[in-house]
């Protein structure tokens, strides 16, 4: 599935749309940034509740292409600014990490 389909197919709200739409290589779900650092794949989507700038930094360094913030966590403007600078797509959902991950996984298989 493509990054834009996180919005069009699954219904996550897109907060940062300045990104290059590409096919997702996979996904990773974690709130521990060192864990993300160690395990997230390049070109994948990160599912997390850790809504701050460090998450964008980690995503950028590991090559994560899109971030989904769960549980409607408030996302600060500095997070969006950092993500737009790095060209990383940002989405928000009221779903838990579990539900968001399950939804993405279903679509990734197709």
């Amino acid at each position, binding site marked *: 599935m493509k990054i834009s389909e996180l919005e069009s197919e699954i219904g996550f709200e897109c907060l940062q749309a300045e990104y290059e739409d590409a096919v997702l290589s996979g996904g990773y779900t974690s709130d521990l940034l060192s864990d993300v650092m*160690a395990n997230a794949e390049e070109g994948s989507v990160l599912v997390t509740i850790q809504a701050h700038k*460090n998450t964008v930094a980690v995503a950028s360094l590991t090559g994560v292409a899109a971030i989904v913030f769960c549980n409607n966590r408030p996302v600060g403007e500095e997070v969006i600014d950092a993500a737009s600078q790095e060209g990383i797509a940002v989405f928000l959902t009221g779903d838990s990490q579990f539900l968001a991950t399950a939804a993405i996984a279903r679509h990734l298989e197709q």
Partner: protein
Amino acid sequence: MSEERMQPLQSSLRVQELIYGLRISEVMTNKVFAVSRNCTMRDVRIIMKENAISGVPVVDNKRVVGIVTMNDLMNALEKGRMDDCVILWMAGEVQTLAEDMPLSFAISAFGKFPFRQFPIVNKKNELVGIITFRNINLALIRELSRQLREMENQQENPADENSLALVKVYQLHRYDFENGGKASSEIKRYLKERGISSKLIRRVAVASYELEINLVAHSIGGMLGFDITKDRVKISSHDRGPGIEDVDKAMTEGFSTANEWIRSQGFGAGMGLPNVKRVSDEFAIKSSVGMGTMVQAIIYLNSEEKNEDQRA
């Protein structure tokens, strides 16, 4: 690149990099005059006078048990007790330093304690040398002139523009999560612009980011240095304290001393140092409570071989 090296800020930071890069054993005086417990203050006076030194360690079976300084000698002289055994006048609580510590630890020790010299011991706790400010000054002058010569050479034969070579140092401050990550991003961009493969860049980024966050989250402040050549990226992290009590524990995945606030920032999973080690081809850590921690990670640019997923 040579322009960058000539910037005054960068070059003064090179001095810092230098004091971290040198080991105490490379700087200390190897020839130590020591006395045994039953020597007299008069013996010490003769040794000090003949060798123009200001402190003599007292040893028992190569172990340092005390030190007699000029001050102790003057006190004994004043009281007319020059034939007393040294143990009556020496300072018994001696702060020693280990020979394999970085020079920066010795410099912190001079700031922390009132002593003018520190006996240096090896792993077996045996006396192997002594360090004074004079040793440090001489070593710095020697190293700085060597570096100056190198820089002059570089100016005469400037490296070509596509060269990878870079020396850069970043200062990091406690709890400044705002800027933690900046150095890693810059270095990542630098390597990307020069066509380094994304796999290698990722390894450099992981090591550098974890070290950066460690400095911000756990140290009272420090620096992160990058020394890049065509063959390798060397990342050095140095801080001024507090130092790690148990390095083996700190290297264990899952062990963390992070507080709630650090955790709320998404860190403190106890994966930082293990992550750095896992992505590095060479890894070294040295820490001393009260003096600081030094970590060095090297990633070779010609070996994509190291499998990142292989758990260390």
